[in-house]
């Protein structure tokens, strides 16, 4: 059965999609709204603003890759679909960041987990940042709209074995576990969400809002890096962009200047602050790019007495918030538990050691179950997150020192994951740390974990969620944006992505971005058109 490539069909039917790597001259574009970035925020904004009758140009630095390109191969997908070949690192290289970079952004490669912004997070934002209008009730219509638009609902098939291990551990130990809602329609349960959905079942921006926007007349330009906003008298008058070469690593010769009435920035929580910093955006309180969060994530691998085949089946369908909910929100760092999909490159590069010991562990690949603990950073004074800086070549890099406060949570998460894996029947548990040679019992694990140095590179810490850096707040002393995403110092610039969050979310962030983007883009559409905004769904 062949899958329809709805994107290529659309292009053949006349959608305007420009590959900037093929430009043969400089170019000027004009629009009502220029949107930088085609991920969760940019995609939602593109649909709403285009359907409101505005002329929209959607700019994406990465390539356009569609279902017919998605072959479920890591060797192809990581260089094509991820920032820095899935090897993006924090400045000290202690944290590896998985972040998307192609049309659809991270939504093209994420694992489809959908959570509304937790009420505890919203309450903290109200208390600490004065975000009084971001309430559960106020946001729920926007989450409802995103649910409808993107098919978000509880997964109706059985979890794969990797996820059932988390559920089993929860049942054994009396730890609460729950099913995850997913943004899929007609999912084949293959397990390859992370290399781009080959069946177009995942309701990413690539197959939903961006096609809707293009069908309504928006222009997509990919292989185009937003270099600088041209600022005059507190306004952006143009966006200077540089075409990328086909491989997408280096800038090419030609530039594109986009003039627009309004600019929507949705390049992700490293890209958006980076663009504003490069542009010299006014930042009187020195907050731009600060308080960037990662959900620093720890990993424990367990060899089970039976097959796990964690590469097969929907990657994330069960989670536990027990260890988020058992600590006060401003207390020791809490963490969410989930499982990762198991694919040879992802697992082989994450796993500690080399040579014979690494090879022996890889021979247990099919029987290996892994757990992830996503640490909820940003809710405590000792967890201020990181700051986005610019390298000499102008590209952004995140400086994120792991504080002792975070390390304490890292260690606690290892103990919890080991205990859960033994409860699920593990023969041997490997905390992903260079000095862990595996534990056969919980007593051994307890003693062993006590000795593991809490140091960069020795302990493997990863991230798939970048948030913050253009944080919202009720006043300019606490945030560079307001709750509508407006950049306070620039009249016609709206931030519309995860960089708006003043802390981490404490859950996979895609739905938080969809909801907030829908709310804010609708308001922007009304301001620009003086008409009611079109419904997202």
């Amino acid at each position, binding site marked *: *059965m062949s*899958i329809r490539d709805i994107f290529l069909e659309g292009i053949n039917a006349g959608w305007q999609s420009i590959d900037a790597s093929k430009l043969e001259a400089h170019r000027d574009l004009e629009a009502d709204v220029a949107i930088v970035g085609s991920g969760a925020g940019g995609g939602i904004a593109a649909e709403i603003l285009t359907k409101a009758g505005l002329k929209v140009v959607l700019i994406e630095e990465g390539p356009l890759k569609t279902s017919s390109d998605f*072959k*479920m*191969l*890591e*060797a192809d997908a*990581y*260089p094509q679909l991820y*920032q*820095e*070949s899935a*090897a*993006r*690192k924090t400045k*000290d*290289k*202690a944290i590896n960041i998985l972040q998307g970079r192609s049309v659809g952004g991270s939504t093209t490669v994420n694992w489809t987990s959908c959570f509304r912004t937790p009420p505890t997070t919203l309450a903290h934002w109200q208390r600490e940042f004065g975000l009084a209008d971001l309430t559960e009730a106020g946001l729920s219509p926007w989450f409802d709209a995103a649910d409808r638009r993107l098919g978000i609902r509880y997964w109706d098939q059985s979890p794969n074995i990797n996820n059932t291990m988390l559920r089993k551990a929860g049942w054994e130990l009396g730890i609460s576990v729950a099913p995850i809602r997913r943004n899929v329609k007609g999912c084949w349960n*293959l397990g*390859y969400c992370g290399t781009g959905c*080959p*069946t177009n079942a995942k309701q990413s921006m690539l197959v939903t809002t961006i096609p809707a926007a293009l069908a309504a007349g928006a222009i997509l330009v990919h292989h185009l890096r937003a270099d600088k906003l041209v600022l005059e008298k507190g306004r952006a008058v143009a966006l200077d962009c540089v075409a990328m070469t086909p*491989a997408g*690593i*280096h800038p090419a010769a030609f530039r594109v200047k986009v003039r627009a009435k309004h600019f929507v920035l949705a390049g992700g929580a490293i890209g958006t602050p980076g663009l504003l910093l490069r542009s010299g955006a006014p930042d009187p309180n020195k907050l731009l790019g600060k308080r960037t969060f990662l959900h620093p994530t720890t990993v424990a691998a367990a060899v089970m007495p039976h097959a796990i085949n964690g*590469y*097969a089946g929907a990657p994330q369908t069960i989670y536990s918030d027990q260890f988020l909910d058992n600590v006060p929100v401003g207390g020791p760092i809490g963490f969410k538990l989930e499982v990762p999909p198991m694919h*040879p*490159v992802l*697992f*082989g*590069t994450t*796993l500690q*050691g*080399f*040579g*014979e010991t*690494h*090879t*022996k562990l*890889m*021979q247990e*690949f*099919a029987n290996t179950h892994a757990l992830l603990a996503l640490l909820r950073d940003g809710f405590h004074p000792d967890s201020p997150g990181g700051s986005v800086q610019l*390298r000499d*070549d102008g*590209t952004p*890099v995140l400086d994120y020192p792991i504080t002792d406060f975070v390390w304490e949570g890292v260690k606690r998460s290892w103990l919890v994951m080991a205990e859960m894996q033994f409860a699920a029947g593990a023969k041997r548990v490997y905390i992903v740390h*260079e*000095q862990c040679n595996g534990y056969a019992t919980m007593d051994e694990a307890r003693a062993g974990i006590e000795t593991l140095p809490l*140091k*960069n*590179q*020795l302990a493997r810490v990863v991230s798939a969620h970048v948030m913050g850096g253009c944080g919202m707040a009720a006043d300019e002393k606490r945030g560079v944006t307001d709750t509508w995403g407006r950049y306070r110092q620039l009249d016609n610039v709206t931030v519309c992505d995860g960089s708006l969050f003043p802390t981490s979310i404490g859950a996979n962030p895609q739905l938080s971005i969809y909801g907030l983007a829908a709310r804010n883009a609708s308001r922007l559409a009304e301001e620009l058109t003086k008409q009611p905004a079109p419904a997202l769904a």
Partner: protein
Amino acid sequence: MVTRRQFIKAGLIGGAALTAASLFYSRGLKEAPVAAVSPGLTLENRPVIAAIVPAILAGALPESGEARSQAIQQTVEGVGIAIAGLSAASQKELEELFTLLGIAPARMLLAGVWPRWEDASPAQIAEFLQGWRKSRLELLRSAYAALHDLVLGAWYGNPDTWAAIDYPGPPEML
């Protein structure tokens, strides 16, 4: 141009060695023509990569013969492709690392490998990697981590390696 003496000095001062040497090197770099970045392999990095591949993949590579040398060769190429896919900034850092490792005194003092890369035994290479993996210096640990990820990524990205770990590969879509 960097002198032998400067590198020896850099090696002896320990902590700052890699950074300092990289700085010296990058100063020299600006005058030199820019090397082609794709497919990511250069005269500098190829011998180092070819030396570390058998150590990192010990137990995974075919034991001997043509199959072994072919697998090594393929993985070295794979590392080159992976390097070419990294950001310009990461590519530059790796280039500095490999250039440094290509200079005999730095190889000896920072990596502890006395023979040329081509002549070093797997045990010598493994010892070097262990040293960096467990080093007190964060910079050396992160350099080890980069080599680890590049080689293992290139290896397990290759479908030929999947049977050994009971990974059937992606499902047939038809």
